[in-house]
């Protein structure tokens, strides 16, 4: 047991930081404000292209797809540094983390050849068509239908709270091909297919983040299905296990806490109350960091996903909340034109317990799988 970084890991972190220092424009923090805005989407394509050229976009991918098979520590250090910088990859982080690897595992040769190279070049944006008006935490109750018609499927239905849908080229879509949990299939749907309507829903999170997507008799070939009919649940479970820790939110939270404290110190406002809250938030961030590292370590050892990942996610939610509350209480001007990145952090922090699954679902998993408490009656 040790808590030191080895030389390769330290050098890789320095390389990523140097890349960020060189490639982030002076107005980056203003750009970071809208996680799915047109301006950020456009910038992310240039930025990801440069990352790809430097071998920093998909270092953990297999060589055949442009990677160098770097271990999970390298991809996590990359993710930490990117998120701490305000995530200049925009929505492309999803390609890198799980959509690409999922296609490598379950896609046909044709699907892989079509979709993976643009991801590895940093040219394409995806959205995930999961949630629906009646299917949030209870995802298995989704209603969007994919009906087989000869060599085609016809999609009818609606998705909601879909991030990046307005700018995405392709949707990783869940749709029902049969009844029940085992009746859900995955489709790779180009967003310019006739019959798709995207409407942005104004949100606290910022421009371009939340959308409704309507599917009105959208025709797509059977070759657009990923895996077998009814295989969605197995694929999703495996692809999400590729991304067991999720976004290293603690990295930006921790950086923003330091920035807020720095502001207070410079202006002689770091009073006793602020000290108490800042220290608690810092402890929560560092506990979360170690939880996440623990899970990366398990992954390096080839251990199967365990309930600690849920604990790490819940710890993250706590840490994000403490930092966001600290900033609102002690640096309130940050949300009123005072600091673009503190504002962007706030907008991301408030969804920490909601995006990619409600925190309360994680608590259920912790209770059942980690604590081994008896299950709730269904």
């Amino acid at each position, binding site marked *: *047991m*040790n*808590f*030191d*970084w080895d030389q390769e*890991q330290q050098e890789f972190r320095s390389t990523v*930081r140097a890349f960020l220092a060189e490639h982030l424009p002076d107005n980056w923090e203003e750009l970071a404000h809208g996680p799915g805005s047109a301006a950020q989407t456009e910038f992310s394509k240039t930025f990801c292209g440069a990352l790809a050229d430097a071998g920093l976009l998909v270092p953990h991918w297999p060589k055949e797809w442009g990677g160098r098979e770097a271990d999970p*520590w390298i991809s996590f250090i990359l993710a930490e540094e990117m998120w701490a910088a305000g995530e200049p990859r925009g929505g492309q982080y999803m390609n890198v983390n799980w959509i690409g690897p999922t296609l490598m595992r379950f896609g046909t040769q044709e699907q892989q050849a079509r979709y993976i190279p643009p991801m590895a070049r940093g040219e394409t944006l995806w959205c995930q068509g999961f949630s629906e008006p009646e299917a949030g935490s209870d995802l298995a109750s989704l209603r969007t239908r994919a009906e087989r018609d000869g060599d085609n499927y016809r999609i009818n239905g609606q998705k909601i709270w879909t991030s990046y849908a307005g700018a995405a080229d392709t949707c990783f879509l869940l749709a029902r091909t049969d009844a029940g949990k085992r009746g859900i299939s995955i489709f790779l749907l180009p967003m310019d297919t006739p019959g798709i309507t995207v409407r942005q829903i104004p949100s606290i999170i910022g421009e371009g983040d939340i959308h409704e997507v309507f599917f009105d008799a959208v025709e797509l070939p059977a070759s657009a299905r990923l895996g077998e009919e009814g295989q969605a649940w197995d694929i999703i479970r495996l692809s999400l296990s590729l991304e067991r820790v999720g976004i290293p939110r603690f990295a930006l939270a921790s*950086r*923003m806490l*330091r*920035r807020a*404290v*720095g502001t207070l*110190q410079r202006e002689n406002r*770091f009073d006793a109350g602020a*000290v*108490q809250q*800042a*220290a*608690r938030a*810092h*402890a*929560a961030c*560092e*506990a*979360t960091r*170690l*939880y996440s*590292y*623990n899970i*990366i*370590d*398990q992954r390096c*050892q080839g251990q199967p996903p365990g309930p*600690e990942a849920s*604990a790490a996610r*819940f*710890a993250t939610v*706590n840490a994000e909340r403490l930092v966001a509350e600290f900033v609102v209480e002690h640096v309130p001007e940050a949300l009123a034109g005072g600091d673009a990145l503190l504002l962007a952090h706030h907008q991301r922090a408030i969804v920490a317990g909601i995006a990619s699954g409600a925190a*309360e679902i*994680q*608590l*259920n998993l*912790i*209770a*059942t799988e*980690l*604590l*081994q*408490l*008896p*299950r*709730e*009656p269904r």
Partner: protein
Amino acid sequence: MDFTPSPDQSALTSAIDRIASRFETTPTEFHGFALDGVELERELESGQYFDIAAIPEMGPIAAALVVERLARLPCTAEIALSMLVRPQLDIELPRPFAVIENGRPGRFVATAKTLVLIDGAQVSVAHPSPEDVEAVESLYAYPMGRLAGKLSATPLAAEQAAGVRTWLRIACAAEMAGLMQAAIDATVEHLSVRKQFGRPLGTFQALRHRMAECAVLAGGVRRLALKAAWTGDAGDAALAALHAQESATRLIYDVHQMLGAMGMTLEMSLHLWTYRMKALLSELGGRGAQAEAVADYCFGAGQGSIER
């Protein structure tokens, strides 16, 4: 970064597990506050386990693993200070160790052979005679004692005093981590068997979520404590102690709430962990003082308070 114990550390924890297995149960006739682990202490002494931090292939992190493991037992002995603080002062100093903060009663004071005296900013060390100290009755689940009179003590230089505070924080966090885990385990057992409204209490989401949150906090304390034991860094120590005292405050309330009236009786063992945690809550000034230490060490000048 490696969270897997080394072969040496694994061998050590296995040996400790074997010792601990003989002390896992509370004697049925015991209805007191502090269950004194005299036998456990004797075993650890004869195996020279109190000196493991000074063995190069073990180090303080191995000692922290042992402290955490043994804190889960219902019985208690002076382990954490001897294993984690004593090596930083002088491994030859006689044990048991105890701390007296600003003249207040402290854990193991009545039997201590080395006392660390904290008076405001000053830290000093003394070796009491039996007549210098006396036992006190208390609700805490440690044997508590206090000074019976004046004692001559040797003040520590500021740097050494700061080092002692750092390792006291690490010892506190490592012990708290074990206590939290044991309290959770005892509560989970209760929630799994105790039925109300026709089903186990542990099936009610209101309780499941609270227990899950406690488990997340306890896991964070454990990881922070182990990291601090590895680095020996003052900031890491302050973070670990802060998170320990902060989290324990909530956890103690929650687990007692879940055991209801049963947890109020001395026939249940829950107090053997929660009232040890309560004794640790005030140490080194409590969580408010740990927060100030975090600010000093982590947000102070030269500590990177200005984000990169």
